[in-house]
């Protein structure tokens, strides 16, 4: 039996410039107790479809034709055609949150910050299940237990900002499940989460689905998630379904060119070292302009360019009051020792909160350290960057640049692209206005954007284009070392492939050195020469990319690797083993890896050029340096 049948759905948006067709003659079904994945890039119309089903389409949108039939498998209510219901009317409200529920992408913003979790989850029960406040609280507690909150009773009265991203997403799932809906729409439910949390949430969704026998419409652009969750797949492009079938059919024998291209754009661990991703819209690099007038770098390839020595950073969480009371601190960086060699790409991996962005900020000298120092080689040997001042500091700032994670908030919406690209020259007083304008044009060319776009404002660009502008800005001062802070985590796979290739080509042509911060191991595996893994402010494993991903020694690295969903049906996640592998608590790591507070997280060379944090091995000199 099909819980949801969409037949010939067409949705138009009426804008000032005329009518835009967002969804064009789309038909597919979601059978009972099955998961159907709707796969496509941003702007493909997949979210519009989910809005149509929920009756949440904006006022400018209208359903031009087609049916959206919801048939409750319990038979309690006759099938209804959602397309004919009034969107804000009582019949649609009766279905929303009751028979159909939705989980959104951003757990950070989809909960109101001013209301407790219990209040927000219980609200749906109060609306639809005809229960009293106390009963709703009881139901909410049961739901929180179902989604495996550590302490459901206490969680009822917590506010969203007190919870981590993973817990917030669990709360969202509890909210969606509380009325036991026939259909759950999961709109990119794990895109904003870490890999390990993502694996947990995917596992949870499967378990809840099995328990409540509900159907799931999974909207995503991540083929790794699709391979692990979906029974059936529909691929959508520009509002049209390109291809649909069972997961087995589509992964083993993709027919449509678009699907083939999408699959080619996903980085995976099985790629050869020199194999390249094939983006759907590749950028041809024109770097002649920049290579011509690049300053020569005096550090020989392979020599240390940056060195972190015992870098320690603590944040004060809550200040002690006047009357005493201990200030709470969080160790974001605990005695980090790391070398970045000239010309390499070092991947820095870890979950959110592991300290990887703080490490990047320490190198930028954007924060003050409590201990240790960061050394940088400007061709005159390693210098402590904390001692740099005046002209030397400006010189350092020119050499080291940053690419941000979020291309939407890292560009000032009130300045044109030209203003944004010119600013570095103004700050550093480089060139005449004509030369600056010329540079801005060549930078746009470099990242594959039309220089005529310079007069536009950021809002007229897509996420991938904005990220390219961010890259152009970072390159403006001819740096030699670039910190990339999760530059592709906010982007679609096809755009991600484009940006990754662009970064790779730039590194080759401009002799750049990268520190690539990311939580996506597959991406780091594709780009990085060496990998450093961080957990809770400690560096736990450093080594050649292939050695680390092929033969991880530290339990945390193993857990991280086992949680990455691969776009391959034959390499599915082992959900049963996930709990056993839970390894983000340093006190619970087995010997010799166990770390308790106060123990120095020292690195031991367990294989040639493969360092692992194993304080237990530190003093048993016999093992040091030998292959473990």
């Amino acid at each position: 039996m099909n819980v949801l049948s969409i037949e010939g759905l067409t949705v138009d948006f009426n804008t000032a410039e005329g009518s835009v067709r967002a969804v064009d003659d789309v038909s597919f079904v979601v059978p009972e107790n099955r998961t159907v994945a709707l796969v496509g890039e941003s702007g493909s119309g997949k979210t519009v479809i989910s809005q149509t089903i929920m009756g949440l389409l904006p006022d400018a949108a209208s359903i031009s034709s087609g049916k959206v039939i919801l048939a409750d498998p319990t038979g309690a209510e006759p099938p209804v055609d959602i397309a004919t219901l009034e969107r804000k009317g009582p019949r649609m409200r009766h279905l929303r949150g009751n028979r159909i529920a939705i989980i959104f992408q951003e757990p950070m913003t989809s909960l109101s910050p001013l209301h407790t979790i219990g209040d927000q989850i219980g609200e749906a029960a109060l609306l639809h299940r005809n229960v009293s406040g106390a009963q709703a609280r009881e139901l909410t507690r049961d739901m929180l237990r179902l989604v495996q909150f550590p302490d459901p009773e206490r969680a009822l009265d917590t506010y969203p900002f007190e919870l981590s991203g993973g817990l917030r997403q669990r709360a969202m799932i509890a909210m969606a499940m509380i009325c036991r809906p026939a259909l759950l729409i999961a709109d990119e439910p794990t895109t904003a989460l870490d890999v390990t949390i993502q694996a947990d949430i995917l596992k949870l969704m499967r378990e809840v689905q099995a328990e409540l026998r509900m159907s799931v419409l999974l909207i995503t652009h991540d083929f790794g998630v699709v391979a692990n969750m979906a029974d059936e797949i529909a691929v959508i492009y520009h509002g049209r379904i390109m291809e649909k079938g069972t997961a087995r059919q589509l992964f083993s024998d993709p027919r449509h060119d678009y699907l083939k291209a999408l699959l080619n754009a996903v980085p995976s661990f099985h790629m050869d070292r020199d194999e390249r991703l094939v983006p759907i819209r590749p950028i041809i690099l024109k770097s002649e302009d920049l290579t011509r007038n690049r300053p020569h770098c005096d550090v020989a390839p392979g020599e240390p360019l940056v060195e972190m020595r015992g870098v320690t950073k603590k944040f004060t969480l809550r200040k002690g009051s006047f009357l005493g009371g201990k200030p709470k601190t969080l160790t974001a960086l605990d005695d980090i020792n790391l070398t970045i060699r000239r010309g390499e790409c070092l991947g820095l991996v870890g979950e959110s909160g592991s300290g990887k962005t703080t490490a990047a900020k320490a190198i930028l000298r954007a924060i003050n350290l409590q201990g240790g120092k960061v050394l940088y080689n400007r061709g005159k040997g390693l210098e402590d960057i904390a001692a740099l001042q005046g002209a030397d500091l400006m010189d350092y700032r020119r050499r080291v640049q940053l690419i941000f994670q979020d291309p939407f908030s890292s560009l000032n919406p009130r300045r044109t692209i030209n203003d944004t690209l010119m600013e570095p020259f103004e700050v550093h007083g480089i060139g005449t206005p004509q030369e600056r304008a010329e540079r801005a044009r060549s930078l746009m060319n470099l990242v594959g954007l039309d220089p005529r776009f310079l007069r536009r404002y950021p809002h007229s660009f897509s996420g991938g284009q904005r990220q390219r502008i961010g890259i152009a800005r970072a390159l403006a001062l001819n740096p030699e070392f670039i910190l990339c802070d999760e530059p592709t985590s906010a982007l679609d796979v096809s755009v991600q492939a484009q940006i990754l290739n662009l970064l790779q080509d730039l590194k080759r042509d401009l002799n750049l050195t990268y520190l690539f911060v990311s939580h996506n191991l597959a991406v780091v595996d594709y780009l990085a020469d060496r990998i450093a893994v961080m957990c809770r402010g400690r560096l736990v494993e450093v080594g050649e990319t292939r050695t680390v991903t092929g033969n991880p020694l530290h339990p945390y690295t193993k857990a991280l690797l086992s949680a990455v969903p691969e776009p391959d049906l034959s390499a599915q996640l082992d959900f049963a083993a996930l709990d056993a592998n839970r390894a983000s608590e340093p006190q619970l790591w087995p010997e010799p890896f166990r770390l308790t507070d106060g123990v120095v997280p020292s690195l031991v060379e367990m294989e040639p050029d493969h360092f692992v944090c194993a304080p237990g091995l530190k003093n048993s000199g016999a093992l040091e340096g030998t292959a473990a």
Partner: protein
Amino acid sequence: MMIPTLLVISLLIFFIIELPSGDYISNQIAALKSSGEQSSIAKLEFLRREFSLDRPFFERYLVWVGLWPGPHGFEGLIQGNWGWSFEFDKPVDQVIGPTLPLTIVLNFATILFVYVVSFPIGIYSATRQYSWGDYGFTFLGYLGLATPNFLLALILLYLFNRWFGLSVGGLMAPEYIDQPWSLGKATSVLAHLIVPTIVIGTSGTAAMIRRLRANLLDELHKQYVTTGRAKGLKESQLLVKYPLRMAINPFIADIGNLIPSLVSGSVIVSVVMSLPTVGPVLLSALQSQDQFLSGFILLFVAVLTLIGMLISDLLLAVLDPRIRLGGGASS
């Protein structure tokens, strides 16, 4: 925190008031000298000593505050002696006393008016963006912002006088002035409050409608509103429970700023409408360098501001759990 802040503010006020050369009495003396009168000069010199005006700046300041012994021992603001008004030849509390309650009543009525009128209109404008109603209120709002207050005051006074026979100017009908409080006097005050409240509140209302509309529009497009809608909430319930709660935060934070602007902003209107509020008294005191009077009024406004800030901070902590529990847990 409030006490050191008040001390710093009082010092600044005293400093600024004393910036113009001379004081009320030395100006008097100069005027008398030019007209050749010697006898009164001796009396004025005595007054100067009496009010410690002949002492150095910091001593004068401390005497005023009450931290330094004056000619008659500790006698300053802390001890409840608010000083002497030279212009009115009365103690400051007698000059201000009758006007203070009326000022507070008027300001409170104005704040109430601003909030009561702007909230429904702001919500209406935001939820029906670009509708005729929205455009209409926008137009009225700009009109309110652009019309000079005194002009509005004159027009309204004329109309109220023609339609309801209300006496022009003042805060009560002439026959009640200096009479003990009675029911008739209270109703008269209430009737006379209407025009000043509208006049003083109009521009504030217009500004607040615009800001509430903008805030609410921002919130209405946030994800958590969609979440609420996806739960099946009615639009009206949804609006009140989620976006409105978020959108009123800036307004609560604003209470502290509202009070001084209402006192100082209403000076011209008060002069035009001859309202017995603190505003006109402050104006004349500043003009004639009546330093104790003007100093006290300015300090009074500062105290009102601080109290307003305190209230808004407490309210915010009650309403917003992020402020109550967050306690700087940002990293």
